[in-house]
């Protein structure tokens, strides 16, 4: 019993600060590694008619049927050309299993808690909420936008591009 607990704990610590990063548009985004089930190569997607444009359809993951979301479309970025190197990140957020199609998977990084800054409020208007990004992680010279997956999956409106743009401005 106690042994189990310690292993769980240590797993927790090893996973806590680890993030998977991927590129979408000009930005690098990061997802907490504990949400990631696996990464699978691109496969045939069955189109679901009449849904939001970023929901590309369904895939068959070893008998489980899961929806896939195109991250670029979700962020209102120009659509991607899918090719052999396109990957699907399978995430599990509160038992909702979804595949994310991303332009390019980058790397797994460690971001310490003290290196995570709250997203700066955006000067132009206070009304712009920080929708999908709950923090900005610094790794070395670069900055990753930490994705709030719950909002990413379930919030209706978008507005991330605007946000990403202003982050880009900030960076410069």
């Amino acid at each position, binding site marked *: 019993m106690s042994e189990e607990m310690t292993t769980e704990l240590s797993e927790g610590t090893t996973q806590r600060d680890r993030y998977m990063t991927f590129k979408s548009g000009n930005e690098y985004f990061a997802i907490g590694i504990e949400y990631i089930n696996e990464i699978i190569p691109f496969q*045939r997607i*069955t*189109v*679901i*008619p*009449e*849904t939001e444009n970023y*929901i590309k359809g*369904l*895939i*068959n993951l070893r*008998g489980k*049927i*899961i*929806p896939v979301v195109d991250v670029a479309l979700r962020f209102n970025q120009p659509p991607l050309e899918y090719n052999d190197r396109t990957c699907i990140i399978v995430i599990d957020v509160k038992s*909702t*299993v*979804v595949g994310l199609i991303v332009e390019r998977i980058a790397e797994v990084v460690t971001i310490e808690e003290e290196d995570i800054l709250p997203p700066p409020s955006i000067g132009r208007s206070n009304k712009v909420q920080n929708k999908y990004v709950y923090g900005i992680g610094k790794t070395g010279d670069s900055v990753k936008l930490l994705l709030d997956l719950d909002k990413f*999956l379930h919030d209706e409106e978008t507005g991330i591009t605007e946000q990403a743009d202003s982050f880009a401005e900030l960076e410069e």
Partner: protein
Amino acid sequence: MAEEFNTEDMLDMYLLENGQLLEKLQETVLEQKDAECFDEDAINEIFRTMHTIKGSSGIMMFDNVTKIAHKLEDIFYYLRESKPDNVPHLELVSHVLDVADFITAEMDKIRDGNDPDGDPTELIDAMDVFLKQIKHEITKVEKELPPENVYVAPNQFYIAPVATSGSRFYQIVITYKSDTQMSNIRAYTAVYALKESAEDIIYFPEDIISNEASSDLILKYGFRMLLQAQLSEEEVRKIIDTSSEIESIDIREVAAEGFFNSDFLKPIELDTAVPAKEEKEEKAEESKPEEKQGKDIAPGDYVIQSKEPGKAKQLNKNKQPKASKQSFINVNVEKMDQLMDLIGELVIAEAVVLQNPDLKVPGLELQNFQKAAGQLTKISTDLQDVIMSMRMMPLTTTFQKMNRIVFDASRKLGKDIDLEVVGENTEVDKNIIEHISDPLMHLIRNAVDHGIEMPEERLAAGKAKKGKVTLSAKNEGGKVWITVQDDGFGMDRTKILKKAKKNGLLGSKNPETMTDREVYQFITYPGFSTNETVTEFSGRGVGMDVVVKNIQTIGGTLDIDSVPGSGSTMTMKIPLTLAIIDGIVMETADSFFVVETGIVKQFVSVKEDMMIHEPGGEEYVMIRGECYPVIRLGRYLSLSDQDTSVEDGMMVILEMEEKTVCLLVDNLIGEQEIVVKPIPKYIKKVKGLSGCTQLGDGSIALILDPAGLIG
């Protein structure tokens, strides 16, 4: 509590067992609700049920449940012992049902992890009054009053009373039925119950709580206790006898000397010595209690234990035969669902193997493979049938609940109504049963409230005073038909039309030309209720549309029929199962779709000149003199921009609820068994789709929802 043990298991057991008891109780009560009074069996059963619930609730420390069960037990104790006449039966019935409701509500709270905090005082007071009333009746005819069934609220702390000269010593053996689950917990129940009044108590096996294996020992040899207490034998028996799982209780009073040195507890360890020793003890001591009962048994006569006099015997008599009970086990529904899923995947995997493209090499001889494949297919089909039949449950329980609803509603409305139930043994998939309970309840309430007239009106209309609602179920054409029929005044066409007009539902339709069925269909629209006054039971107008929606979600339909003056009939037609259906697979715009085989009327290849194009963009097709509306699936689902020519595609004629449409698809693939999977919740409900499935090659097909397409 002093000992630590897993209360969760106990709680599950408590909920399960008492739930079943209450269900049985309601059934018994409702069976005899129209009788003059309860017969002896029923009184005994209700008494026992309450006794058991009281006991187990006491252990779990649900005080309010304990109290109310105790009060009802009091009443039935009195009924059983004094057999009073002139008991207001209907009042009694409603007391029993109120108590059952109260306990059920408390158990629901417990199940949801809340505290059972309902206040039983009111009910208890009402029952007190009732009890006094019937007792008063009895004193008038001067019968002897039985002693009051006194109940002492359990203390929550155990302080062993000190031994006094009044102490008596008992050897107790409790035998549980051989199929009892967790007999160790039950044994602990007995110990716990005795602790309050015991001066000392020793038992074997000692580790009943910490060691689950002890339950086997208990089942095999019985649970043995040495008890020192100031109680009579009868009192001890009463304290212990709280569980229906007890087969017999053997209590012997022994001398104080050497009581705790007695080897009474030990024989259990010496396997072979046990029976002989027990027999000897029995022979030696049986004569004593027997004499008390005034029976003429000579000392030394062999007395079979089960012939033991008193309550235990009575208990056994009324039990169902053990054999039938043993052949059932309770299985967690989740495990069943898991098994169902796995079998579904097995069926798919089998198709993947058997239709593997690697096998399709020209000239390949696969005789042995085909033989083996045939065998595999047979087994997996059988497996499917078995799991399906395992999930099938009779509608009995669902129908019984309706009995209660009719009873309650008719009494409150002052109507006299009989519920006739036909074909309650019809079996339906468990998932479906869960879905039909609510709609059925609505339909029954509607029938009772709107359908059946008040007694005076019925007499005036030349009908029997007693209204009748018939609830029936039958299998027909791969579906289950559940019909609710009443002999009330039926539906008023003009009234419905008036209301429909007022609510703006008529649209461009001409009320004169509408068929009766079309008119009745209006009552399924949201917010539609012709009842002028809202009652507790119906009339709020939220009923029928929800009913129809619920039925449609499980792929069923609702037919409404009515003969003015002589009643209405509502027929639910629901599929037997949701999990695996026969489907036609077809292709449109590079996507696969499946439609349930049952609603496909025919496939037709049509020529361009059979099409009729309306200026508004609507299309019709003339097939053998009949004109059908056309849905181009690709365009309907916005999958393809340009229409394929009708001559390249295939028309699938779908018929449902007397509506017919032609579905234009690109290609037909074939018919096969489809394992229905839900569309992941993340995707919002899509119009016209009801689920998805995996085809033999691993690709996904979407299941079309005919109600969505046609409606």
